[in-house]
């Protein structure tokens, strides 16, 4: 069973623990500028929104890559960048409609979320469960539950 990152912006406090966890997992240091998940702070509304790759089934980044450096991890469904193959041409960064694959100056490669091999570090680090890792077919379950509670209003005898 594949799982997906499930993001609930209403629970995000903007602490950036997820960004630190991501950079620590992939680079061994605390460095939000290297994070593959980014929290956007819309200060005029007070909304904080974590954003990262949704692992498109029909992945534009993968199709656009001229050297086949992006592969599907069969177990997780994640689209994974093979550093040894990537030539840093950045075509994938143009192809991705969501901006979630980006170039890294230090390595000369691109990076994107790879679900940490089925154990996303951002999920463990999030203190408010704004980021969870759930059954890929049921990312709507929690929202369904919230609406369902509205129907559970009949008085009980």
């Amino acid at each position: 069973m594949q799982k997906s990152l499930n993001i609930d912006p209403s629970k995000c406090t903007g602490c950036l623990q997820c960004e630190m966890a991501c950079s620590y997992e992939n680079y061994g240091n605390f460095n939000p500028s290297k994070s593959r998940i980014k929290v956007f702070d819309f200060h005029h509304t007070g909304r904080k929104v974590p954003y990262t790759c949704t692992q498109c089934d029909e992945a534009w980044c993968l199709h656009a890559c001229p050297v086949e450096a992006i592969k599907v991890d069969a177990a997780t469904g994640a689209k994974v960048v093979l550093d040894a193959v990537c030539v840093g041409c950045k075509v994938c960064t143009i192809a991705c409609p969501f901006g979630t694959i980006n170039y890294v100056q230090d390595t000369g490669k691109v990076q994107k979320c790879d679900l940490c091999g089925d154990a996303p570090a951002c999920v463990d680090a999030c203190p408010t469960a704004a980021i969870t890792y759930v059954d890929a077919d049921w990312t709507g379950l929690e929202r369904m539950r919230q609406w369902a509670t509205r129907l559970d209003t009949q008085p009980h005898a």
Partner: protein
Amino acid sequence: MAWQRKILRVNLTNGTCTPEPLNMEWAQDYLGQRGLATKYFCEEVDAKVDPLSPENKLIYATGPLTGTMASTGARYSVITKGPLTGAIACSNSGGYFGAELRFAGWDMIIFEGKSAQPVYLHIENGKTELLPADEIWGRSVWDTEAILKKKHQDPMIRVSSVGRAGEAQVLFAAIVNDLHRAAGRSGVGAVMGSKNLKAIAVRGTLGVGTIRNPAGFMQATVAAKKVLANHPVTGQGLPKFGTQVLMNVINEMGALPTRNHRDVQFEKAGRISAEAMHEPRPTDGKPNLVTNQACFGCTIACGRISKIDETHYTVLNRPEYWGASGGLEYEAAWALGAATGVGDLEALTFANFICNEDGIDPISFGATVGAAMELYDLGLIKEADVGFPLTFGSAEVLTRLAELTARGEGFGKEIGLGSKRLCAKHGRPELSMSVKGQEFPAYDSRGIQGMGLAYATSNRGACHLRGYTVASEVFGIPVKTDPLVTEGKPGLVKAFQDATAVFDSSGLCVFTTFAWTLADLQPQLAAACEGDWSMEKLALLGERIWNLERQFNNAAGFTGKDDNLPQRLMTEPAKTGPAKGLVSGLDKMLPEYYELRGWSKDGVPTPATLQRLGLPA
């Protein structure tokens, strides 16, 4: 490791930026941030210096855990000689700026001298440059951040700056970062303004990778985060209600100073409380509070984000104030509200926005307005002096004065002197509710006796963040003590002061101490930092920092006589509530405190004490 081992020395007179290695010997004795920067400051600056002269220095300092996954690792402090007090000043801020400075590879910045023209410091990792501030001088903190992000075409830049209040050298001007997080107290913003330094814009992409034992550190931080999550104050109370959870509690205790400390209970406290911030407004059906917000790395998230009612008189036809922004914390709500007798939550929120927009300390501002209102009530300030009547309880007066003071205009210039100078000018110095020139925060020392001693002995003037005995006297953390008695308080104050000095030097937030003791911090420091970081060493380190600050103040001319409270708190008993009939028992506590500290009867550390702490005589 943990330290980046690099400081930046910026000579504003010569326009030079020079990297220097961090003094690692001092880091072992003073840790970082407050402690280490105070050590640098005391070594480099004559205690007698005029705070607003080029000879004063201004240090931005992070701690070894700033910018790490340790919960609350957001903090930086600004250390200087404070113009409001003439004492050592150390103001602490959260937000995202401090971590960014560390990610750029710097532990500290030392500013010295004075620039001939307004400038700002631009840092991009190792690239540092002073640039002309023409397009931001005269602008607010909010405008400054927007202009610099646009100019450098980088929305990820973090900015720490002064607003028009800092430029005008309002004596309680703050330094504000990330729009509404502030190094708020003692006038550090005035020092920055006096140096013609408008802002620091920083972008760091190097990260913090110098943790001694990364696996051990991750384990220690996870364990400590669990302690925060499981504690009722840090896990539930602060995220939901913020520090404002205190408003009704402290009012019921009869320890909410009201109308310049004439009263100890405020009849409108409920209207300006955390609960009121959650209440839907009759006008638009929405509550004042939009959401809570964390600073960098913080798993508590006590910050308040509020939105003002668009039909409120303060923002009518002023859409620039309709967005959500930093809302009321308890100290600000008290100072802007109870201290002035104003019970209009929206007006308080507006005044708070203004304090953030142009960088003034809402505590000293509100308390000074309260003092001015009393002087007006006594006929010592006339309507003609101000242009309008300074009536206790008037929201319009409060918000008008906020705008005037924050921009250094009109009667706001008088308010900007602080209550000590204002009251002295009108012949009633005793009406300034301050210690060493800095106004009290939101706890009346007649109803919470330990706080009287904490205020009187605080090295930066009256302050709740130097020894927060409220934790024990109100919340029973770590043990419950009776707020109405003086017995046992000297030891309690000393213990809180010393432990707080360690937290303030680590890069983490003192609010963790609702749930943590030094024993929770110690494993995180030990895993991150090279060297021995035993509990014994940390306890001694906190006491060493306290005594170093004290030595600076003594050298600056302060004596035991300045460890005092205004006459009102010593002679006018609380009129109502549980503390009715009580005055502060400071005189009973102070001698015992000096003895516990190993100080002479005049409040001077004895040679034996200095030797024990490894401080030079």
